């Protein structure tokens, strides 16, 4: 059924149709509306047979989900940013135990400095914890991915993170098609655990494993994600067959067939990128873009296949490997191993800074003219950087950096973008 609703609401309705049995979450911007929506549905009885638990921290949230999942219940939670870090120990634990928990990440920057707006630093911090990571491009896709995620998680016994850009998607009203309960039931069978705490058949879960077997256990986790590389496309095909639209998959190429320049990105910025690609194609430029949906497992073969004939690749990242540069770029370079082409990393949109068509247009033109550095920070205010470096050089007790910069930037509210 078509609806014009907030992205968070769309996700809540999708999750509700997946018949979750235990939902627990701790509030953090920008996921709050998702969990509030689900809580209301449970309280009103609309979402039946579901325990909604208000926990005292994100660490508790994921821990409750771990207990519930281990005991055979379909468990769900949501968090972002600082909250994801606070539950970091449990994130690794859930993956290590092989529990098919689904968690929404409302992508938000990590402080200090504290920042409530969108970037990918949070989910990137957990990229190697063993969770499958899927990035939604639109609110429709965010909705759809949750349905696929439960099935993916349960088939593999591996937890799945569905990432959606905070505010840009979570707080945006969009037209979405919310599936019926019947259709979701036909796609997603009841949870049948591979391991479960059962009084009729007791097992011990969470043993200590020493050097004699740890490597093998870790390899099996890696192997699980390699199986996901096959399963993810199968599920999105099955999803398309049932629901009539394509969602998810490993990667989404856009006008890349004869492209000389290909832009790679995760998440909602792909929409803006596609607009610019269309504009530039109309003007005769051979440009295309590649959206990566499955970041973990990283689809090396698929990325290679799309990018291999391009002259240059520009990876736009909403995250930063401090002291190195790009994170997504690492995966892309890996995929292109042995192939020589020009690779550029562009760090953009950190802490919610808008990525505009104008800025992208200029960026892509520079790339095309080979005037782009290998590592660029989009829309970086060089004067401001200079100002701060000089200020710090003048006195040892130069005070907090963020505050000094903000004083210089002035009242943000008086600007539009």
């Amino acid at each position, binding site marked *: 059924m078509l609806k014009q609703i907030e992205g968070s609401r769309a996700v809540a309705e999708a999750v509700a149709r997946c018949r979750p049995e235990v939902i627990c979450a701790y509030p953090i911007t920008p996921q709050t509306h998702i969990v509030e929506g689900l809580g209301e549905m449970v309280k009103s009885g609309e979402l039946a047979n579901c325990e909604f638990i208000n926990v005292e*921290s994100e660490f508790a949230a994921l821990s409750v989900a771990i207990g519930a999942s281990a005991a055979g*219940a379909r468990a769900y939670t949501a968090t972002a940013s600082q909250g994801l870090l606070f539950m970091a120990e449990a994130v690794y634990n859930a993956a290590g135990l092989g529990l098919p928990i689904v968690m929404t990440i409302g992508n938000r920057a990590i402080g200090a400095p504290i920042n409530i707006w969108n970037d990918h630093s949070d989910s990137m911090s957990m990229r190697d914890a063993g969770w499958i990571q899927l990035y939604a491009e639109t609110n429709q896709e965010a909705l759809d991915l949750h349905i696929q995620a439960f099935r993916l998680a349960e088939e593999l016994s591996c937890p799945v993170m569905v990432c959606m850009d905070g505010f840009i998607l979570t707080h945006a009203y969009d037209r979405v098609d919310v599936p019926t309960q019947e259709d979701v039931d036909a796609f997603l069978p009841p949870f049948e655990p591979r391991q479960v*705490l059962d009084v009729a058949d007791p*097992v011990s879960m969470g043993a200590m494993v020493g050097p004699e077997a740890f490597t093998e256990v870790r390899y099996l986790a890696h192997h699980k994600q390699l199986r996901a590389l096959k399963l993810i496309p199968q599920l999105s095909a099955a999803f398309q067959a049932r629901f009539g639209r394509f969602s998810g998959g490993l990667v989404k190429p856009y006008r890349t067939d004869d492209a000389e320049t290909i832009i790679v990105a995760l998440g909602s910025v792909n929409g803006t990128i596609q607009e610019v690609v269309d504009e530039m194609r109309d003007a005769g430029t051979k440009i295309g873009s590649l959206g990566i949906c499955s970041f973990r497992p990283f689809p090396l073969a698929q990325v290679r296949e799309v990018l291999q004939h391009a002259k240059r690749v520009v990876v736009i990242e909403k995250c930063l490997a401090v002291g190195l540069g790009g994170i997504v770029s690492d995966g892309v370079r890996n995929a292109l191993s042995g192939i020589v082409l020009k690779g550029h990393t562009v760090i953009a949109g950190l802490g919610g800074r808008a990525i505009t068509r104008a800025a992208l247009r200029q960026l892509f033109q520079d790339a095309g003219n080979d005037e782009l550095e290998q590592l660029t920070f989009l829309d970086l205010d060089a004067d401001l950087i200079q100002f701060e470096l000089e200020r710090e050089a003048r006195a040892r007790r130069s005070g907090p950096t963020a505050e000094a910069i903000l004083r210089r930037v002035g009242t943000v509210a008086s600007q539009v973008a």
Partner: protein
Amino acid sequence: MELQTVKFYQTGTFTVGNRLLAEDERSVQANMDRTNSLNSGHRACQGCGEALGARYAIDAAMRATNGELIAVNATGCLEVFSTPYPETSWKIPWIHSLFGNAAAVASGVAAAMRVKGTPGVRVVAQGGDGGTTDIGFGCLSGMFERNDDVLYICYDNEAYMNTGVQRSSATPPAARTATTPAVGREPGNVFGTGKNVPLIAMAHSIPYVATASVANLRDLERKVAKAMEIAGARYVHIHVPCPLGWGSLPADTIKVARLAVESGLFPLFEAEYGEITGRTPIRRKVPVTDYLRLQKRFAHLFNVAGEGRVAQIQAIADRNIAKFGLLEEARTHG
């Protein structure tokens, strides 16, 4: 004819296999059909108070629930010595997640049992003092506050034993640990610190709180069984000597535990919804020195400088006796 002196000990009805008691009053351990939830073959130290306490507590819980129990274990001695890869000594469903989240994981298991329609399957969470009073404190408080249907058992050996005897907020004043060494002006743990989790549990007004000791295993069983009759958040705090960490003899574990109780340093009481409902009076009061002398972790108190501090410890014991009425006539609820 030479007369041979034979010492005759009146040990009471609780020995001799409980044969003088009615069946349902006997210790779980007297029953051949007991679960042996924590089975033999685990790797606990000789004389481990925690292994003893856990065996009694979990078997008692299993009897109370007719065998329908799931255990959640925090990281610590119990978890480590009971599951040496690739073996496990647990005969019941058991999960170890992390150090600080046993209470939250247990809440999740309890929620799953409700939603699956098997609320008769009960949940016990267990952890040492480190995992309960320190790192697991937030989750514990959350579980209490929500009144989740979980029995949390804390095995208190008064330090982080598994990692090499470091101080926790349950470490008593003056005790030597690796991080409160017996050196300097105030050797051992500092006075004026520490956290009383049973009282904190009572402040949450949860349905049932009790302290217990391996010195009185029948009392421990009774309290666990009683806890299992109640729905909601319950907390049982068991004093368990650790011969290795305390520097006491493995053969003295129960004796040391008894002296802690009889000196007043470890009061045995029960509370419901924040009010004390019963306490075990001290039958034969002993000075704290009887207790302290058996443990090397307090050895530094018995040199020239230690006297004043022994007096401070005695004062703590005396305060407990007064506060809980431990020398008054037995008063129990109902």
